[in-house]
């Protein structure tokens, strides 16, 4: 991002974003980490908290991505990576797995996003400019079913366009789904009054953050 206004800012790295998310997850939560950026959260979970990772293809209690030499070829996560199981893990079929999701049993889902609206609307599965075949996977189920939906995303697109917006332009994944956004510039809650800033990356000012956001920010 070659935005001059960013001079003096130290945006959160991907690892820092993942660590911020991980630090906010209470012990005992059952968590589904979406493909991409959210997957990094697994590497930052506090060792002294038991947090169970769910994979929509039928695993509760995933461990880290397996090293190639020790990988069990029969166990993959939703990103088709070979993963391990922790002690106490369980396996089940797809209908049971999405019963967990849709039934509100998953405490948290962390997803990527194209756009997040100030009312919590999420667009993360397809863009109107996308000429690939449309593909949704489990995103709609997760965004609708999880008790809490947090998004991890760069604050603006590579070309500098807003991703936190007043209203999504891209096709929705779910309405009023997102509760919190972890971007490289800030941590922002979605409240009945819209975006509310919890924390900012070093050097980011309220004025800058507002400039880079397509809807009004609250600074409580």
């Amino acid at each position, binding site marked *: 991002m070659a935005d001059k206004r960013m001079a003096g800012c130290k945006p959160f790295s991907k690892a820092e974003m993942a660590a911020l998310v991980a630090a906010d997850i209470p012990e005992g939560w059952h968590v589904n980490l979406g*493909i*991409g950026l959210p*997957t990094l959260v697994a590497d930052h979970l506090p060792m002294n908290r038991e947090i169970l990772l769910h*994979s*929509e*293809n*039928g*695993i509760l209690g995933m461990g880290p*991505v*397996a*090293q*190639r030499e020790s*990988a*069990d*070829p*029969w*166990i*993959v996560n*939703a*990103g*088709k*990576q*070979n993963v391990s199981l922790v002690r106490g893990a369980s*396996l*089940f*079929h*797809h*209908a049971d*797995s*999405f019963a967990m*999701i*849709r039934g509100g049993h998953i405490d948290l889902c962390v997803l990527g996003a194209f756009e997040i609206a100030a009312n919590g609307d999420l667009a993360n599965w397809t863009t109107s400019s996308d000429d*690939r*075949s*449309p*593909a*949704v*996977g*489990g*995103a*709609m*189920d997760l965004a*609708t*079913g999880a008790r809490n939906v947090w998004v991890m995303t760069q604050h603006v697109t590579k070309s500098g366009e807003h991703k936190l917006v007043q209203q999504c332009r891209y*096709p*929705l*994944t*779910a*309405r009023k789904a997102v509760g919190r956004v972890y971007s490289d510039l800030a941590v922002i809650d979605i409240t009945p009054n819209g975006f509310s800033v919890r924390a900012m990356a070093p050097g980011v000012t309220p004025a800058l953050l507002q400039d880079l956001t397509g809807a009004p920010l609250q600074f409580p």
Partner: protein
Amino acid sequence: MIDKEVQDMRSALAGIKDGSSVMIGGFGAVGQPNALIEGLGQLGVRNLTVIANNAGFEADIGLGKLIGTGAVGKIICSFPRGSSTFDQRYRKGEIELEVVPQGTLAERIRAAGAGIAGFYTPTAVGTKLAEGKEVREIGGKDHVLEYALHADVALIQAWTSDRWGNLTYRGSGRNFNPIMAMAAKLTIVQAGTVLPLGTIGPDDIITPGIFVNRVLCVPDGDPPLASTKDADNG
């Protein structure tokens, strides 16, 4: 004596014909009945409707290969990305696509197996995947009406079977297999091992044989190791 084991691919796949709807289990490389899919490709049937989570991956194996042969007229799935053969045919308009959210896909399949004709789900409300569908407020929340998804045939990968078709799965190979086994008129299983009846304990059977019509023993070893880097997926 009930013996659902068949000895060759021809017997396993008998009855699949042009226009059949075929469910195919598996998620990633795990739990995919690759031998049955290969056999299906060799039948030369056309205009199949395939129901699966993905549209295959590699062009030279499994569902990706089957689509490459032009045997598939329509696919109902949640995530058709990552399949070059599908992409090519889809861009040319040679294959029809119905995208269904993964959980709705699973529930529609389970509903078919369970005799439930339709159900109201909150998933996809307010999105373009709910366009044209009935939406109803139940308990203060909007829900979309989705219908059971049946198939003529299900191709299933299991770890063990017995002659009654009682099945177990290995690791994450369960995925869509148990629900697809329930939802098709004809359920054909590729099993790594066929064990003597009674070897699989009553508590260990995941798919009771009532859902299975034929079992072909295919001791084809482990799935390939997946990438350890993150795939573009769903």
